[in-house]
């Protein structure tokens, strides 16, 4: 019987998977942070550069301040950031100096654990990033072994990556990351031991989304196979396209005889909080998912599918939905099986859409695809189909992008950006349009407290306050009557 630890993903991956990364604000997080701190999680999946961008763009909140305040509110549980190691907020490749500065500022603000997710499993790149994190003072690095089903991603492939991680002094542990929730218990029984055997004794974690309902079962098999940490969600931010529900996982593991040292009362409190928040804000709650065989082929996450359906219906082309999905599988194979994690689902989908809707295949090629083929994101796992490669590179735009100047160094950025700004602001301005950063800086500081049940009343009051004054307001229902009349003296 094993001792299992949990990493909670509600605040980052839960919010991203179920609430489009825009659901949670700083006040939502700070309200529950002290409770999450006391549950006994090994760490919290907390931030990504994308989430930092969303804080600025959608909520006009300073993401650095959010990290600092959360760190203060939860001093015992390490906060984790997930990143590719080559970009910060914007999709463009960042200069290594800029990435070094990113890590330094993140550590100073309160991030201590870093997930290194290179979508191509480029181990040279991962080792470089891990070294930068350690130099910046990060305490824990964790390599992502991103799981997918393809002609090239077999157990040996992942074992090879694990072996590369085993020899790096800068990589502390690894996790199997299954962003699409494709891992079955059967495959787990060969994959996990294969990875463990080559990982050199470094701890292994598991992170599998519930997309088609498989991961809760995989989680029950994992501890016996040598996984020491399971990544889970809480309440409304579990299940669905998020991760398995922590309360259920704990109950099931204990039923199997494993030990999970978490405070059940506080775990329940946290879970109820996210459910109360979802109800107050009109956000969906994750639900257990039915199995869907077709999904194992296109591997598109729920959010991407929803967006596609909406785009097609706006164009009056709902009938093309099936054709586009078919095309996704084809494009993915031709591009060398990019793993369907950000930014690749969007990229593959974009190409599939233009292949179906424009005159012919690869007639129109989005810049992201050209950059991918040019190797801007690293070396594709399998070679790109030669005719596709020629077709993409044999166009003026490809030559333009190939001739793009290298990314700017920190010194060059300082020259171009306003003088005297902090490093934190410099990095935001590097990754985002100036007007968005300006708007965030001009906004009032984020609120620090949040009570779900009060929100409807606050909304009502805000609405009333924003309208021309009414002389009388009456709420009438059986057994209750509230009547407010405008006071002439105050008018």
């Amino acid at each position, binding site marked *: 019987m094993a001792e299992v630890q949990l990493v909670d993903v509600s605040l980052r991956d839960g919010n991203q998977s179920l609430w489009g990364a825009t659901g949670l604000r700083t006040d939502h997080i700070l309200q529950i942070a*002290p*409770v999450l701190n*006391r549950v006994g999680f090994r760490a919290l999946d907390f931030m990504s550069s994308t989430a930092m961008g969303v804080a600025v763009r959608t909520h006009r909140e300073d993401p650095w301040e959010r990290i600092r305040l959360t760190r*203060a509110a939860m001093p015992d549980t390490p906060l984790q950031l997930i990143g590719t190691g080559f970009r910060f907020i914007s999709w463009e490749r960042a200069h290594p100096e800029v990435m070094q500065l990113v890590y330094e500022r993140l550590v100073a603000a309160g991030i201590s654990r870093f997930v290194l997710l290179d979508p191509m499993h480029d181990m040279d790149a991962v080792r470089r990033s891990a070294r930068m994190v350690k130099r910046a003072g990060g305490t824990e690095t964790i390599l992502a072994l991103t799981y997918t089903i393809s002609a090239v991603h077999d157990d040996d492939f992942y074992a090879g990556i694990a072996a590369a991680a085993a020899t790096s002094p800068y990589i502390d542990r690894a996790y199997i990351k299954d962003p699409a929730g494709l891992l079955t218990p059967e495959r787990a029984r060969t994959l996990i031991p294969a990875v463990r055997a080559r990982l050199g004794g470094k701890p292994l974690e598991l992170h599998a989304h519930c997309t088609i309902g498989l991961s809760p079962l995989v989680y029950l098999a994992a501890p016996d196979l040598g996984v020491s940490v399971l990544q889970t969600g809480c309440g409304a931010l579990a299940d669905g396209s998020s991760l398995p529900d922590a309360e259920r996982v704990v109950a099931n593991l204990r039923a199997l005889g494993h030990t999970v040292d978490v405070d059940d009362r*506080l775990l329940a409190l946290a879970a109820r909080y996210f459910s109360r928040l979802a109800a107050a804000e009109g956000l969906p709650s994750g639900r257990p998912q039915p199995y869907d065989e077709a999904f194992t082929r296109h591997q598109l996450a729920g959010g991407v599918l929803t967006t596609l359906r909406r785009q097609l219906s706006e164009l009056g082309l709902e009938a093309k939905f099936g054709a586009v999905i078919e095309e996704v599988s084809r494009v993915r194979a031709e591009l060398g099986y990019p793993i369907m994690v950000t930014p690749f689902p969007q990229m593959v989908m974009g190409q599939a859409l233009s292949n179906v809707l424009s005159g012919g295949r690869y007639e129109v090629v989005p810049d992201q695809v050209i950059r991918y083929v040019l190797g801007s994101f690293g070396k594709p796992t399998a070679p790109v189909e030669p005719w596709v490669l020629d077709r993409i590179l044999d166009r003026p735009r490809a030559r333009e992008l190939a001739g793009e100047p290298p990314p700017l160094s920190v010194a060059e950025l300082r020259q171009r950006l306003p003088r005297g700004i902090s490093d934190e602001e410099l990095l935001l301005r590097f990754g985002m349009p100036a007007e968005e950063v300006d708007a965030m800086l001009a906004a009032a500081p984020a609120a620090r407290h949040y009570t779900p049940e009060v929100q409807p009343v606050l909304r009502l009051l805000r609405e009333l306050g924003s309208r021309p004054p009414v002389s009388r307001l009456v709420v009438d229902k059986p057994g209750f009557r509230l009547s407010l009349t405008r006071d002439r003296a105050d008018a």
Partner: protein
Amino acid sequence: MILRRVLIANRGEIAVRVMRTCRRLGIETVLAVSAADADSVPARLADKTIEITSYLDVDAVMEAATAAGADAVHPGYGFLSENPRLARACEAAGVVFIGPSADVLEAAGDKLAARAHAVAAGLPVLPGGLVRIGATGADGAPGAADAAGLAERIGYPVLVKAAGGGGGRGLRVVRDPAELAGAVAVGSAEAEAAFGDARVYLERYVFPARHVEVQVLGDGENVIHLGDRDCSVQRRYQKLIEEAPAPRLGETLRVGMRTAAVALGLHLKYQGLGTVEFLADAGRSEFWFLEVNARIQVEHPVTEAVTGLDLVAEQIAVAEGRRLWLSQASVRLDGHAIECRINAEDPAAGFRPCPGTVTSAVFPAGPGIRVDTHIQAGSAVPPQYDSLLAKLIVSGASRAEALGRMRGALARCEIGGVATTLPALTALAADGEFAAGGVGTEYLARWLGRETQLVRDKSG
């Protein structure tokens, strides 16, 4: 260590206040309640209650903590909050006492010891010293001097103070040397009765002066201040209105007091939340150490309003053995806050306590308005406890804005069934002298006299 269950050994609004933070932090609350408080709002808000015979009984509180399986005791203010015996009993039982160490409580509780520490830390103290009483008992204390000679050296008027006391009890002003012996005898007897400690000491009586205090927070190694408060609006040493920051103090005096408070905190290796009280003469830019309150204060919300901090959470963090997460530079003091104590006392009858049953309780809400209370319609106000019903805390970007909110908010407070200090607070809020800011400790008595005269004139 992480605290998971806290026994709150207190009642009233402070019990509710501590529970609110515990709930936010995910800490279970067990409230020790007396029979008189079994149906109180705090009793209903707590996760669990456990009956005790008295809030002043150390053994009862410890038994309750053990029975409840609490891993800490929060003593609130008053009652056992500064009792070193409770702190030691907690330590012996392996329960965390949410407050300073027993040694610090002893040092702060004995006013003469506190005075000695203040001197050692370089703080200015008023001329004074311990009085020799009779041939037995307290006269054995080292350094005790003959009262008459001591008073001559200090210069009249002098103040007779209880060494083991607090809360204004045992205090006596002596202006005429002929009254000294009597005042010392009565003060000593009163101190013996109230604190079980007959020792009294003399200090120069400064008049007029202001009562200004500095909030400090320490982790045993680092100590920071969280700004100052003015508590000069008081009657017989009972505060009625407090504010932060102290108005019209002057930067030299303000910085001097804050620096002195931190110096004393460092000297005591202070752990937790505490207040260093000073007497200040703003006109001459002088200040003197008064005492240390080694607990959370009634008036802590005005500091919370201007710092944005949760002081109970800071207490708990230190009790969990954490280093301060704040540095002095990271503490920001913004705006102004005023607290009004709404007591069940009749200002028209010399502030006589008015126990009874609250029949209606309506409090205001809105931006810059906070109400800390444990009462609602139907709440009992038992005669055996402190008469504090509620604290109205208003804040704004400036003192003028806070004062405007105070007037509006007081007008919206309605408490029925018992007489309250609301009429006095409302009248004070309208008084020009208070509005100007910077009144001394003599102000309230003077104002009351004027008001009484006004009432007499009108009715006459």
